[in-house]
């Protein structure tokens, strides 16, 4: 099955502009007032002692749980699949044979094996995991990254929320102002010519000229009487402000430059985009970004997992070895740099895959079971939380729902999941209205 049509949704749909409800806010505020009020309410007074950032490695398409983190070596062949298993740093716990580096790093990882929900469509599943809410036609929910962006504000030169490489659906700001959407680095971090574009003035434009031009622009924007302030213009203004902040900070710009990293470190993460993307993520959180989503596509393995998951065709052709190297290297790198305690690393996709291999030697969607790996940021590593039954069909212990994942992430990141935001139209909305802490996670 191809990558989903982003429009087909079974349980509703999400559109930012659907929220234009056409009413005055109960308090009689104008839109501009509302946003200023929100911005004031959100700006952090003081950094808390231990600010936790997040790197979300998103395996788009739905990674098979049985072929990765929840193998079933004792199940019949048509369930256990073509791969063997290996022991890990946690006694008694085994992973797919194609995750050897991760197996060694299990001491840092809290592996949830009992993720469960009912939304088996790519976009509904993705919405659920990215926002912590089931999709509904009535509200466009913000991604967790956008929530973090709002809570962090734009005090720093680096954007608070970055996505590597491109924004995909449901990673955006939903009912929050557009300024809290992700900044996409674009391109492919594994390519030798990778750079984030437009971070430097064009040749021949000196710093003085930059400043001069900015001065004129500010004046002209000020003097224009033609375009009224509204949601769209405020977003545009916010983006320009963010842009200038970023441009004015060599340290921030340098965080995007992978060439600043040694060959050795770059090789360690592996040459595929997931590896270089994780490395970029590390650089960004190191430099002050609060939430980085690294998107790795290609996990929708309906066909021939023996060929597509390991390096069956040639080195680097498979999904698993690249993931293994990227993930384990990220954890090790963070640990070595003393960043693991303050960086929550989450590894997941929208759902697991069918326990029974299908007639194309692959697996299909299976939201009833799936995995989430947590590490860092105060997580208690070296444990497995929850389990699935003998065939990996449903949780047999400690079912964990996507709202629980979202709730736990927010709490670990220092955000109150029940905090209320005001959506356009004056409607108060809790960030999450359901969900609880995953037991024993931290």
């Amino acid at each position: 099955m191809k990558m989903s049509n982003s429009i087909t949704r079974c349980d509703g749909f999400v559109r930012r502009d659907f929220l234009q409800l056409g009413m005055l806010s109960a308090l009689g505020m104008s839109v501009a007032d509302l946003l200023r009020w929100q911005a004031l309410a959100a700006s952090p007074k003081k950094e808390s002692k231990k600010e936790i950032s997040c790197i979300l490695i998103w395996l788009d398409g739905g990674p098979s749980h049985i072929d990765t983190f929840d193998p079933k070596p004792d199940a019949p062949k048509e369930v256990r699949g073509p791969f063997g298993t290996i022991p890990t740093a946690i006694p008694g716990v085994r992973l797919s044979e194609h995750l050897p580096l991760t197996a060694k790093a299990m001491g840092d990882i809290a592996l949830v094996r009992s993720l469960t929900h009912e939304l088996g469509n790519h976009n509904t599943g993705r919405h659920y995991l990215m926002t912590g809410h089931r999709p509904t036609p009535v509200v466009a929910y913000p991604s967790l990254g956008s929530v973090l962006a709002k809570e962090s504000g734009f005090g720093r030169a680096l954007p608070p929320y970055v996505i590597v490489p491109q924004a995909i659906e449901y990673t955006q700001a939903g009912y929050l102002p557009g300024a809290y959407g992700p900044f996409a680095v674009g391109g492919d971090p594994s390519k030798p010519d990778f750079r984030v574009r437009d971070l430097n003035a064009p040749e021949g434009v000196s710093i003085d000229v930059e400043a001069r031009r900015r001065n004129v622009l500010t004046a002209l924007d000020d003097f224009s009487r033609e375009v009224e302030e509204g949601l769209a213009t405020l977003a545009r203004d916010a983006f320009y402000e963010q842009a200038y902040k970023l441009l004015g900070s060599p340290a921030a710009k340098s965080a995007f430059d992978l060439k600043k990293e040694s060959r050795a470190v770059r090789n360690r993460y592996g040459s595929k985009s997931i590896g270089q993307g994780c490395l970029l993520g590390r650089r960004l959180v190191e430099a002050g970004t609060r939430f980085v989503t690294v998107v790795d596509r290609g996990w929708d393995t309906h066909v021939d997992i023996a060929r597509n998951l390991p390096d069956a065709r040639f080195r680097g052709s498979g999904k698993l070895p690249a993931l293994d190297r990227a993930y384990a290297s990220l954890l090790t790198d963070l640990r070595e740099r003393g960043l693991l305690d303050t960086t929550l690393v989450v590894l997941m996709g929208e759902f697991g895959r069918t326990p029974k291999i299908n007639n194309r030697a692959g697996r299909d969607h299976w939201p009833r079971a799936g995995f989430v790996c947590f590490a860092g940021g105060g997580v208690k590593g070296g444990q497995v939380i929850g389990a699935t039954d003998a065939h990996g069909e449903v949780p047999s212990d400690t079912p964990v729902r996507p709202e629980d994942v979202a709730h736990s992430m927010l709490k670990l990141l220092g955000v109150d999941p029940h905090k209320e935001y005001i959506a356009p139209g004056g409607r108060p909305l809790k960030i999450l209205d359901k969900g609880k802490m995953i037991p024993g996670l931290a």
Partner: protein
Amino acid sequence: MNAARPSVALFFCGAVLATAAERAWHFPTDILPRLTQAGCNAGKCHGAATGQGGFKLSLLGDDPAADHAAITRERGGRRLDFANPERSLFLRKPSRDLDHKGGQKLRNGSESWRAVRDWIAAGAPFGKTELRVTKLVVTPAELRQSAQLKVTAHFSDGQTRDVTAMALYTTQNDAVATVGKTGQVTIERPGLGAIMIRAAGQVTAARVAAPFKRELANDFPKPRNFIDEKVFAELSRMRIPVSPEAGDVVFLRRATLDLAGRLPASAEVRIFIKNPDREKLINRLIGSEAFVDFWTMKFADLLLLDSKKLGAEPARAYRDWLRQQIARNTPMNQVARALLTARGNLTQNAAANFQRQKTDPRDMGESVSQTLLGIRVACARCHNHPFDRWTQADYHQFAAFFARTRVQGGELVLVERGEVRHPRTEKVVLPSPLGASKTAKADGLDYRPALADWLTRPDNPFFARAMVNRIWREMMGRGIVEPVDDLRVSNPPANPALLDALVASFVENEFDLRRLIRDIATSRAYQLSSRTTADNRADTQLFSHAYLKPLPAPVKADAIAQATGQPDAYASQPKGTRAVQLLDAQVPSYTLDVFGRCPRTDNCADPTQFGGGLSSALHLINDPTLNAKLGPAVDELLKKYPQPRALLDEIFLRTLSRFPNDKERAKCLKHIAEVKDTKEGWQDLLWALLNTREFGFNH
């Protein structure tokens, strides 16, 4: 328990049995809706794919036969106790008499509980199998104040029944209206909303339009056409005033962008100021080549015209064919017919490329219904649509229209073997249009002409509506229904009378695209200012003022090129090719990507979905290509306008389509005087104008 009780109980049961047996029970309309209302068959309960606790029901009751079998016959029928109906597991669990993970869903003794009990006592019959609910009628259909809804089910045998107590009510906007379990609607505050009603396997909605409580200071302007009549009528009812008319240069810029996809040239602005004949302008723009380029691009976006998918030659031929239709103003129903029925060589019969959007007939069905009918049927692939009327049967019958086309040897051909099966019955399904129950007539092997006939009929409720709504959105910045590809019963139009009138006019005028565009452009509603008043500031759906529109990516890129007089060079394209003229999104351009052009892999109803944001701002600020245009632009301008004031006017006219105001003039002339290198000073100004908020918006 004393000895007298059992006999009393027996007597009581007997009495109940007697009355219960007299009533003609119909499981799908008497019992099943109660289960839906109680939430038993919701997606997270027994309606889930694998059910709950070993008990599986169809999602929201879309398969009454299977549900009846599950309840009455599964597990040796142990869920029901005919001798002692009240002891049935089917009653005891949801009423929490026994442990029930789902909580209490029925209250012991409630009306629903008693109905179920009586039905069990009657032997839990299915009832007449052919009997079906054909529609729901809700009154009032439109609420301007709090009210109690009444819902009537119409049956296939002509009978009607009040199902108000059995329906499931959901508000689509709880800030405006809330609804209780029994259909009592309370208006919370003025605004628009809808109450979605589900009962007996059907869906309908009541529109909420609660007016503001105030007197309007001024009358509405005199309507110029039927569009104004409908727009102003609803605004009047809602007590929302309109903004004044937009000024001439604002209108010039807006109309040129909306109709021709470009900025007006500075000369056009100067001429229009002297002679602001708006109708003449509209006609000139609609008759221009730029109009054809722009609207061809829009339709190519809609049709996902992509050379990577179609191949370079077919894609080029397809675009040329499309452009020809726009240039000739071919009626839209004929265009649709051609798209649906073309076959043969993909370069010579380029319209056939429409049918290559997807290879699986079900995916085609989804794509075609979305593109041409504005309907999202995808949910109905696996079960009946939860928010709309489409059943799984509807879905597959529609998909069946597309089962017989294949691409073979550069041609679109029809094959004999090609079918769609209903996933549950596994029977072959014959093509039938959405909402129709009759199988379509084939023309030999070809069912598609029947589809085209149905789609383009004057009384087809979907095609004209979807088309009109899309065109409205292009011009006005927002559809009357949003999203434009999600027209459904539970998503009512913001102004139903307006949409109906536009549809009627469109059909009456034989699906004439230019006429529709002209009618919109000449209306007062289109020409309102985007500046709001205190009382219409919050209106975002009823067109009391013009809504800001960001410039689409190709238009923005072209605007920069035109304003600087420095065209862009696109790979393998003749010099001077504008972005709106490009074949598709395969032509490499980081600028167009970052500005958010439609990638044509998926529907792009919302132009702000892609691109924009911080990356776009950085690009405008630092793009070396943009920067490289400034020098040559200023050099040329200085030759033509050696005087600073005149030059300043010219660059304002080119970029913002107006003269500078006093503050702007003073600041800019001061800047030029202060900067050592005059040329650099002018480059700064030109750069700044291209980066202003005002430049980037169509206001």
